[in-house]
């Protein structure tokens, strides 16, 4: 058995097969079980070392050679595979409740497989091409058959496509910088190219306009899936650059650039989220803020601490977005749009979905007892150690998020006084939302439960890590 075949080849195969399955429930089950199985295998079977189960010896080799280059998944990547496929399983199981399983499972599984390929490919620089392929698969996901492609989807395509050339070319220039480190002009050009590439990929301020646009034209569930998957892997890809190039890692300019772009995203996204009147757009701005948090986390010193904060927020982000997106999709099936005017008072008929929206939003804002609290607290502590001014601006961004959450709550519960209470969600929706919300509380109250998964992640970055 071969690790790239197992975690890239099999999901791609299942994705292709699921395109021909017309049944929503079967699709969701197939996608969810495939992702869950891959996650469990990554959890229990080590890569590249023999595992004895009775008389059977099982070994998953790490590399696969294609066209003279390697796809390699090592033991250090195991925890990331567990998290990626574990959260993907949650998304796929929830896709039936959201009514998008026939779209999400084939394309989503393909996207996850390509994102895993981007982690596995050597040299790591080629990851940009796999991320671009994943983005291309995102287009049919965002624009289902019979729906006009919106401006958001087009901009998404443009931004993700423009990112790839910048990053590939920057990678080539960085090799030149390594051989002549004193060449300031070359260093500046390479860093600018790299920065532009990542700015497009991560939708860094002001290149995030496609996110709120998508929120108005696409299903919140598929949008949430992309908002989770692409930035998560892009951050890992970015960490690869920091790990590989010493001069980049130790550059003071990089740290201040990360701080500036991160805080701009947090403050701008937070303030926009506070004043939106559309629940989908609010989620999009919160996704912008979450990416801002991750970028800010990268600037924390020492680097081992930065890695800890980045990885600590991975699971809460995935879980929070899944709950939020599912809840919005359930509401959208009942109302015309997610504008405040349309969702006013739906808490009386969809209390669980509304709870999901509000709790996921509060979690993203770092509200105590919820999953987002531990990573926000760690980030805040790390930033305050470097700069109190940054910590203050972080507070402004978080206050924006909290204001948005309170405004949403106020509108969602604003029903006529004697409206009857009811449970409009189906049983599947109730179970999925219940599990998700419970997860948000468990991660908030007992963050140490994910510690075994997170402690091995820094091993992926031998220079940047501990």
């Amino acid at each position, binding site marked *: 058995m071969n690790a790239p075949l197992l975690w890239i080849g099999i999901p791609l195969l299942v994705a292709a097969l699921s395109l021909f399955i017309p049944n929503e429930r079967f699709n969701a089950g197939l996608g969810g079980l495939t992702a869950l199985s891959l996650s469990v295998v990554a959890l229990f079977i080590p890569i590249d070392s023999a595992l004895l189960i009775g008389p059977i010896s099982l070994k998953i080799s790490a590399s696969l050679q294609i066209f003279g280059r390697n796809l390699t998944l090592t033991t250090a990547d195991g925890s990331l595979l567990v998290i990626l496929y574990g959260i993907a399983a949650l998304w796929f199981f929830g896709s039936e409740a959201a009514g998008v399983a026939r779209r999400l499972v084939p394309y989503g599984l393909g996207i996850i497989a390509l994102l895993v390929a981007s982690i596995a490919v050597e040299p790591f620089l*080629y990851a940009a091409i796999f991320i671009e392929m994943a983005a291309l698969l995102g287009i049919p996901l965002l624009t289902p058959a019979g729906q006009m492609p919106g401006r958001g989807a087009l901009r998404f395509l443009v931004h993700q496509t423009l990112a790839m*050339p910048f990053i590939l070319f920057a990678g080539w220039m960085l090799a030149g910088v390594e051989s002549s480190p004193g060449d300031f002009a070359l260093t500046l050009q390479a860093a600018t190219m790299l920065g532009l590439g990542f700015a497009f990929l991560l939708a860094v301020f002001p290149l995030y306009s496609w996110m709120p646009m998508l929120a108005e034209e696409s299903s919140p569930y598929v949008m949430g899936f992309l908002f989770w998957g692409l930035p998560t892997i892009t951050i890992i890809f970015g960490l690869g650059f920091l790990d590989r190039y010493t001069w980049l890692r130790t550059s003071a300019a990089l740290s201040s650039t990360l701080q500036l772009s991160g805080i701009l995203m947090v403050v701008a996204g937070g303030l926009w989220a506070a004043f939106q009147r559309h629940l989908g757009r609010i989620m999009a701005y919160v996704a912008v803020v979450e990416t801002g948090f991750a970028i800010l986390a990268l600037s924390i010193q020492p680097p081992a601490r930065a890695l800890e904060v980045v990885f600590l927020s991975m699971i809460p982000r995935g879980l929070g977005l899944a709950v939020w997106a599912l809840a919005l999709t359930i509401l959208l099936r009942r109302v015309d749009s997610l504008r405040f005017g349309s969702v006013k008072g739906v808490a009386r008929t969809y209390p669980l979905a509304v709870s999901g929206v509000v709790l996921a939003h509060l979690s993203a804002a770092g509200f105590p007892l919820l999953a987002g609290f531990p990573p926000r607290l760690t980030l805040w502590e790390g930033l305050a150690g470097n700069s109190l001014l940054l910590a203050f601006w972080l507070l402004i961004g978080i206050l924006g998020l909290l204001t948005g959450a309170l405004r949403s709550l106020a509108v969602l519960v604003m029903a006529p006084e004697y409206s009857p209470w009811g449970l409009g969600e189906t049983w599947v929706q109730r179970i999925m939302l219940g599990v998700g919300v419970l997860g948000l509380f468990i991660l908030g109250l007992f963050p140490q439960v994910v510690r075994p998964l997170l402690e091995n992640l820094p091993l992926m970055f031998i220079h940047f890590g501990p």
Partner: protein
Amino acid sequence: MTSTIFSWLAVGILLLAVPTLTVVRDWRWMLGLLAAIYLAVFLLVLQHWPLAMSVVKLVTGWMGTAALGMTLLNRSLDEDGRRSFFVEGSPFRLFGAGMVILLVVSATPRIEAVIPGIGQSVLVGGLALVGVGLFHLGMTSDVLRVVIVLLIILAGFEILYAAVETSILVAALLSAVTLGLALTGSYLILQSNPEVEEEEGLL
């Protein structure tokens, strides 16, 4: 010597085809020009890559063009013979494209100093595609044009990248991206409402 002649011939094709592509309205002309651009890309990539690998660029590009063409053929557009051959604001577009090309030509010697050995013709061709593509991208929201422009920018990048990277895997992956982008474009065109799609961008 022959190789140099061919490379400058390719640059000539590009400098004619790319600005023209920004102003023609008919999709048949646009796709014809795109096919010509891929021929020029092939000739420029041939400066650094062996023939067998360079041909991949040509074949992939033409396959992508064919995919777009077949989609547009099947869409059976309601043609309006009275509409002009050029889009509105053509003089401005040509002027803008001309300025970008001038900028590229004047900047080429300096860029060549950064990337030695790449060749002036390759630099002019690649940068002209990327530059005019980016300029045009800022002026249109039409699905077909956006996809064609993205293909052009990618082709420009591939010309430049071929000079510095000869990996077979990269060639294969970039071809897959080109084809994927064309297929994505075909899908988006199929989803588009013909009436809306014929509306031209911002000008």
